[in-house]
């Protein structure tokens, strides 16, 4: 009993280390503040004003605003998971972190906690702004659907963030560009500004393997949009959890590879 409590304390302390690191780096660097306030608001306002200019029907406006708010939250949250490794890469301190007895789970959960705080902040700010500026009520579907939707978004963000970490461990710091570009690719594929039905058939296949597609479909159904796919919530969760589990194994393999090739040391030079 005492052993398991000590083990739990050990796990929590190590996870907290990544919360601590990301939190302080967020507080002390202006660019992270821009990520929360500037870029999401610019994207939100420009798209929101476009919907006004185009005099879109309220449900069409809802479709687009859901997309832009979801995308901003995912982007900020996934950056934090990516930063768990990238901060060390940019500091050239990777070897100190990996010489310590920590696992990928600590890195993932710790950074995700800060990601959820930051992504959640973006989500709330944009939700309030969308109500005040464009009269769009994000809370219409109720607490549970919104909670499930937001959780799906954050898990999707974790999935992207871990994928970025894997790429960095395989290709080195030149892969850091993925931290900003992967989400843009998802923007294109997942039906953020348009339904996936408008995509060419072969692109739609790609959309079908991305969980975010299903979470967006799930939430939009409360605003009158019938999902193209069936069982969207179940599919989204099953997919995102399966991907995360696979990614943890892939990241372990990537870390071992980086230790074999010497890339882990190169990332510290």
């Amino acid at each position: 009993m005492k052993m398991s409590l000590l083990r739990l304390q050990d796990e929590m302390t190590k996870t907290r280390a990544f919360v601590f690191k990301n939190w302080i780096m967020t507080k002390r660097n202006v660019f992270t503040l821009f990520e929360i306030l500037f870029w999401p608001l610019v994207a939100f306002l420009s798209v929101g004003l476009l919907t006004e200019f185009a005099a879109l029907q309220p449900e069409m406006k809802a479709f687009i605003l859901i997309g832009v708010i979801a995308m901003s939250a995912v982007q900020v949250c996934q950056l934090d998971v990516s930063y768990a490794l990238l901060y060390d890469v940019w500091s050239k301190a990777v070897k100190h972190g990996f010489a310590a007895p920590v696992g990928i789970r600590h890195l993932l959960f710790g950074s995700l906690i800060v990601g959820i705080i930051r992504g959640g902040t973006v989500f709330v700010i944009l939700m309030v702004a969308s109500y005040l500026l464009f009269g769009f009520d994000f809370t219409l579907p109720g607490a549970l659907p919104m909670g499930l939707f937001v959780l799906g978004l954050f898990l999707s963000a974790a999935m992207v963030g871990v994928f970025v970490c894997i790429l960095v461990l395989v290709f080195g710091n030149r892969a850091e560009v993925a931290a900003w570009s992967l989400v843009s690719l998802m923007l294109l594929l997942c039906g953020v500004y348009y339904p996936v039905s408008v995509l060419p058939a072969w692109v739609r296949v790609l959309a079908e393997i991305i969980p975010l597609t299903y979470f967006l479909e799930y939430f939009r159904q409360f605003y009158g949009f019938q999902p193209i796919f069936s069982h969207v919530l179940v599919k989204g969760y099953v997919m995102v959890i399966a991907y995360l589990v696979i990614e943890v194994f892939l990241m372990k393999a990537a870390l071992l590879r980086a230790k074999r090739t010497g890339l882990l040391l190169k990332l510290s030079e």
Partner: protein
Amino acid sequence: MAVNLAIEVKGLRKTFVSGWLRKRKKDALRDVNLSVPQGVFWGLLGPNGAGKTTLLSILSNLLIPEEGEVRVLGKDLRKNAMEICNRINVSSGHANFLWSLNVRENLEYYAMLYGLPGKKRQQRVDDLLDLFDLREFARVRFDELSTGTKQKLSLAKSLVNDPALLLLDEPTVGLDPDVARRIREAIQRLHRDKGTTILMTTHNMKEAESLCEQIAFIKDGRIKALGKPQDLKRELRLGDTIFISFSGSLSSRSLQELQGIYGLQTSDSSCRILVDDHHQRLPQILDFFIGEKIFIHDLRIQESDLEDVFIAFTR
């Protein structure tokens, strides 16, 4: 009685491959064998690219070798990596840490990575700040620190988990002599007071000679020699040089027949005698000069040092 080994390396091989299409291979370690007993201060010396950092990186679980067995603190590194990482730590020259975290926060972060809980962590961080005179820099961000203070932080960080084995990779490189001396004193104190096993690489031979009880010379990925600095000098027949200025007639042949004389160069009024150990040979040399009624004007001794050993091994 069996000696408890802190490090036991057998048949270690590490090859780095670079390039995508035209692959280039570089053997960093070739069949390295090394046994470091617990509680000993070992020096790992060798020229640039000899494999020192590669070996340290393997021991700290940052590199995986192609072949060989690595046991650290009695356990197989491959099977018990996490457990071993908990009990060892590493510090390297040109230290880099998270740029926005201040000294205290960096130490706290690494203490958390090693699982130190709340109060114990705070106490440990406070102790380390005091031990390395870092208290006044506690709230200074890493990117605002001087090189010497960064190095102190690196050493302090390497002690957060009170390691049983400490791996130091050129801990005083790039530091001014005063800071380097203080870092050396801190390392020496740690070894003396806590009995921590230390494996240190350095290019500073005086540092190695003053700190290390045992030396391993590595070149081209192979351990070329092992032993105490004195034994290595003897093995290489480097010895000490005695310079004598005299007046009188010196018989070179008789002098050369004395025990422990490696070489002799003479002129009309001076000679240069290479001996295995000047402490042992000087009395008999003086007796010889007195016996021959040769008057000594001046006598100077030049001890060979680890630098000579280094040069001899790396040539």
